[in-house]
């Protein structure tokens, strides 16, 4: 009988190799149908009227003009008269019309009156905004920080921060909805296919529409980006279902780009004043930080603040949430980690500079503070230093070159959990030799389909195209939402188990014809054979024919023995800074990452490349700019909400840690960790180049020039 353990390195045909993503051709040819692309017969378009106020009470809604417009078929009120809205862009009324243009015009014609209420959209200190807008979440003390600072030889103090950014998913939030009698089908742009039915049961229930979860069919074959912002049905999902029910027609309602950037996910800001102290030899002794950040109107799920990874024995850490009307905080790839990494790694780099130490030496001196992952970090520092040529590029501050353009390097480390989520899987082997893997998961572009395909094919000794993967539909066995780097372990361990169970049923049927028992057989290279003896074998198709008329089905679920959690990761950046214009240019970025057993090296590397680029975006370009006077976002569009273009990224080098010491950990999630460090590594590289810290990201010319005005090389 085959067991569940991952095959050893010398007995893997697919796992750990470089495999092209299996749905690549569908995407690059434009044939892939995203939820945004679903067009149904008789479909209407939905659009919404939204609040221009950051905080207000809705006093009067008049939809009569909108309802009288040509082509308008239905109107639904989302926020009724008398209730409050808490951010500009919040949805109040949804309309459906027979063309997109008419729906847009009708939404504009809805008349809404408001009683404006006080609000806060400025991202500033708790002291400045006052008690009514703050909530202290942590005030932790470990050891004796005051005494430890007295014994420190060198103390560094500084300010570090990141503003609110948004997810800017290219496929905006939304869905197409269709009723068929009492059954509801939702083509949702979601990260959680299996959980989404529950969202509609609850949301529609609150609107007086009762429906059972098994009558909600959710489909997401392709998804145009979520990054943590697409787990809920949201007000637009429920309103869309109501419009569809009311009109008796399918309705498509996807957010407009400005609406998307205003409301569909605000990564909380985080800012800190930090004091950190060390002995002359670099030994960290004490940390003291006062941290604050926007956490939406309620501050639920907020962190307790830095320090991050290198935690000295004596710490005081205070965290205060500032309650704002900027918009709803949503999980953004590695929630809170990029912010804490900037604050912590920025402070450590400044301390190392004050100690006149190469930061690599400083980190290695203190790396045992990282606990069980210390060895991983040591290995990764060695690899990253080699790939960056760190020793020849690093220089003490103020030695970034004699011209106006200065060059510098910086580094950062990070960590993440990434344990697998709950996943159920079903593998079916048919008498004709075909194989189907059914799983209620979803592929956000991370390579989930490919991973499931690889694990099934590897387990059954088949080529990739010998397996058909079915996912993105809640009719398949339930699997967890894709968030927090939990998918790869969930689906690969459940798939391994299901495929093994199906294989064992097949082996039992085949064993008599090979004159042996099932426990002596294996599936390898398209055959069922006696273990290690290809001369006693039967080809896959002939083996499956012995099933007669009945397919065999194996089921599996997330298996703790095949996975673990906790990764490291070291990144190094090299930048050029023009001290006359303040422009920061990426030269090179090195990302060294572990994630246990890598199933597909190619898509794994793509995750790390992508995370590095996403990190370059928030390090140098991205910011949701809010205006306290109007309460609105000033850049809800893609001209002024800046993302890096292909010309802005420099050279990027990715290295995945694999082999002994890594493979035996089993699978660990990868999506979040590599996006954590770029902000800190790039900020540190700029500090190394110009000799002074630019306290706040993004590292825009104005911020760089302001920092240069206070010191450094000008």
């Amino acid at each position, binding site marked *: 009988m085959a067991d569940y353990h991952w095959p050893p390195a010398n007995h893997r045909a697919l796992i750990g190799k470089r495999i092209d993503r299996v749905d690549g051709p569908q995407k690059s040819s434009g044939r892939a149908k995203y939820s945004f692309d679903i*067009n149904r017969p008789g479909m209407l378009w939905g659009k919404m009227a939204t609040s221009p106020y950051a905080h207000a009470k809705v006093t009067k809604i008049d939809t009569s003009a909108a309802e009288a417009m040509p082509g308008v078929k239905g109107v639904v009120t989302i926020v009724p008269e008398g209730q409050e809205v808490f951010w500009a862009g919040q949805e109040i009324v949804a309309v459906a019309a027979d063309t*997109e243009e008419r729906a847009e015009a009708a939404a504009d014609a809805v008349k809404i009156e408001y009683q404006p209420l*006080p609000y806060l959209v400025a991202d500033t200190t708790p002291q400045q905004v006052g008690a009514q807008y703050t909530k202290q979440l942590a005030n932790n003390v470990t050891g004796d920080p005051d005494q430890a600072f007295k014994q420190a030889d060198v103390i560094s103090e500084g300010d570090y921060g990141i503003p609110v950014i948004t997810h800017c998913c290219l496929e905006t939030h939304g869905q197409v909805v269709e009723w068929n009698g009492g059954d509801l089908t939702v083509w949702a742009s979601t990260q959680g296919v299996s959980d989404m039915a529950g969202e509609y049961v609850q949301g529609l229930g609150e609107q007086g529409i009762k429906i059972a979860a098994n009558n909600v069919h959710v489909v997401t074959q392709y*998804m145009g980006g979520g990054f943590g912002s697409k787990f809920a049905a949201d007000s637009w999902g429920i309103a869309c279902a109501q419009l569809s029910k009311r009109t008796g027609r399918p309705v498509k309602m996807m957010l407009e780009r400005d609406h998307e950037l205003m409301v569909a996910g605000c990564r909380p800001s985080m800012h800190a004043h930090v004091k950190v102290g060390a002995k002359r030899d670099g030994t960290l002794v004490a940390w003291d930080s006062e941290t604050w950040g926007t956490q939406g109107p309620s501050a639920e799920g907020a962190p307790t603040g830095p320090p991050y990874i290198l935690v000295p024995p004596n710490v005081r850490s205070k965290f205060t949430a500032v309650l704002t009307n900027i918009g709803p905080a949503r999980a953004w790839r590695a929630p809170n980690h990029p912010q804490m990494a900037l604050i912590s790694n920025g402070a450590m780099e400044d301390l190392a500079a004050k100690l006149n130490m190469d930061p690599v030496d400083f980190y290695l001196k203190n790396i045992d503070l990282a606990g069980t992952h210390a060895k991983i970090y040591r290995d990764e520092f060695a690899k990253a230093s080699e790939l960056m040529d760190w020793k020849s590029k690093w220089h003490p501050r103020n030695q970034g070159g004699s011209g106006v353009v200065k060059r510098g390097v910086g580094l950062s480390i990070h960590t993440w959990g990434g344990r697998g989520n709950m996943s159920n899987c079903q593998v079916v082997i048919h008498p004709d030799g075909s194989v189907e893997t059914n799983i209620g998961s979803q592929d956000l572009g991370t390579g989930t389909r490919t991973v499931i395909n690889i694990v099934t094919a590897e387990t059954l000794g088949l080529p990739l195209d010998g397996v058909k993967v079915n996912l993105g539909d809640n009719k398949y066995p339930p699997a967890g939402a894709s968030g927090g780097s939990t998918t790869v372990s969930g689906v690969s361990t459940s798939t391994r188990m299901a495929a093994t169970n199906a294989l064992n049923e097949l082996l039992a049927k085949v064993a008599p014809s090979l004159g042996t028992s099932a426990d002596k057989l294996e599936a390898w290279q398209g055959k069922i054979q006696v273990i290690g003896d290809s001369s006693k074998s039967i080809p896959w198709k002939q083996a499956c024919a012995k099933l007669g008329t009945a397919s065999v089905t194996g089921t599996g679920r997330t298996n703790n023995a095949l996975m673990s959690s906790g990764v490291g990761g070291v990144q190094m950046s090299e930048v050029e800074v023009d001290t006359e214009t303040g422009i920061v240019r990426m030269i090179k970025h090195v990302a060294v990452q572990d994630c246990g057993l890598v199933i597909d090296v190619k898509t794994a590397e793509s995750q790390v490349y992508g995370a590095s*680029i996403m990190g370059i975006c928030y390090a140098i370009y991205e910011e949701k700019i809010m205006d306290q*006077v109007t309460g609105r976002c000033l850049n809800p569009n893609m001209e002024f909400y800046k993302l890096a*273009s*292909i010309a802005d990224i420099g050279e990027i080098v990715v290295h995945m840690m694999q082999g002994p010491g890594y493979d035996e950990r089993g699978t660990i999630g990868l999506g979040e960790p590599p996006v954590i460090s770029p902000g800190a590594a790039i900020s540190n590289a700029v500090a190394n180049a110009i000799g002074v810290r630019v306290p706040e990201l993004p590292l825009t010319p104005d911020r760089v020039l302001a920092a240069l005005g206070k010191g450094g090389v000008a």
Partner: protein
Amino acid sequence: MSNDDAPRCDSADSAAPDARDKKLPDLSRRRFIKGAGIASVAASAGALLADRALGVPPKPQNGGMGGGGVLGPAEVPVTLRLNGKIHKLNLEPRVTLLDALRNHLDLTGAKKVCDRATCGACTVHLDGRAIYSCTTLAIDVQDREITTIEGLEPAEGLHPMSHAFWANDAQQCGFCTPGFVMACTAYLNHEAHPTREGLGHALGGNLCRCGTYMGIKDAVLEAAHSTKMKGGRA
């Protein structure tokens, strides 16, 4: 962190600036262009703006426009030469080429992302050149040769550029990918020897959120050397 003046958390009763008024026009280039297509004179102005903004070579405005009379706001006949076929549609003059493709012809390879000529996800070819279909009115491109990614791809298999995107994993969520493929093929139509550095300028009009630029650079260089790409489109 800023130590500027404390923010004002005052109620809007006392401030009530005009900018809070919902009736203020939304300063959207797209809405301006869409609103401009009512009279043929205005439609020409819209086309002129589109020409300036998008580098579309100007063509005389007459086909299907019915002389100097007022068009719309109701639907009018619009004829598109698309992927080698003639499509006769009835569209309101304000309908963009992108919406005509996606909503009226179910050609969904071109994506609606920024909807105002920034990100390139809606890229199609107009007479062989890459344009943003989100800020081009359908009525303005009659009698022009329009190619979408559906027209670029062979009936079976993949266009060499799409294949290079696949082989170099130049896609993750894939939502920007068709637009990039169209921009890249248009680029290679007039640049036989692309360089890594040159790509940055040529493809700066397309944006990706997942961060697939490294793969895209490799894909374009690989496609440029592919024998199938030599001599124009495959």
